[in-house]
């Protein structure tokens, strides 16, 4: 899958591989022994956040789960 920043696709895939392994083998099993993906995430984010700004994608300042706040409980 491609990143919205064309230059970031390889970094994204590298991070995704790390995350998917950590998620299934550690996170879901309650293993809190630390995140092996911090560095690769950082590299990926540096790239993709720059692409987001360059493309003027209006993600900034959007509250997490924002629109959910005015909805009734599931």
């Amino acid at each position, binding site marked *: 899958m491609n990143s*919205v920043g064309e230059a970031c696709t390889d970094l*994204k895939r590298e991070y*995704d591989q790390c995350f998917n392994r950590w998620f299934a083998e550690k996170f879901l099993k309650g293993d809190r022994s630390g*995140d092996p993906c911090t560095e690769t995430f950082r590299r990926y984010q540096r790239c993709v956040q720059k692409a*987001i700004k360059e493309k003027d994608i209006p993600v900034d300042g959007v509250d997490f789960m924002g629109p959910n706040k005015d*909805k009734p409980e*599931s």
Partner: protein
Amino acid sequence: MVKYFCNNTDIKSAWDHVVTAFWQRYPNPFSTHVLTEDVVYREVTADNRLFSRRLLMKTNRLPRWAERFFPGGMSRSVYIIEDSIVDPVNRSLTTYTWNLNHTTLMSVEERCVFKDSVEQPATTQLKREAWISSSIYGFSKPIQEFGLARFKSNQVKAMKGLEYALSNLQGETPQRLLRDTVKDASEKAKEAAKTLASAAAVPQKPQQYV
């Protein structure tokens, strides 16, 4: 005026698999309209829940009559945010998805909650809700109807895409937990064909394309 939609489905896979596959469902044969996918925020909270934000870019396929609402310079792509919370202790995944642009034309918000099925073992129940609205003067009703129809058709694709990701996961040995892209899968099929052609053939699991 908002159109509300709600339904419940059972997914015949355990919650752990569904949640793992959730991150790996793109690309899939049903998601050709999804052009890019990025994680733009992620955090493990103090109470060990995983908060994530994904940014998706999708093509915006409109019927002819709706295209007149698009002034020439407007982007054809739709940016979508998907925020999610994985709670591994309470075994729930909640996602909230909405479009960032083209909101005057149509705003679609969707909330999904994935939990263990109460009735059936190794099954996940999905409760899906959507809120669809349009602000185009005089056309909001047909646009909302179109939006709802497209939402339902996208729902079917999304479920097929998730099942595709699940079948890739479950067929794999632990080392192969990581999903290949669709292109890599066709490379593997080529390799498999070569291997079968040679004397020392090892039986290969057939690629699962729906």
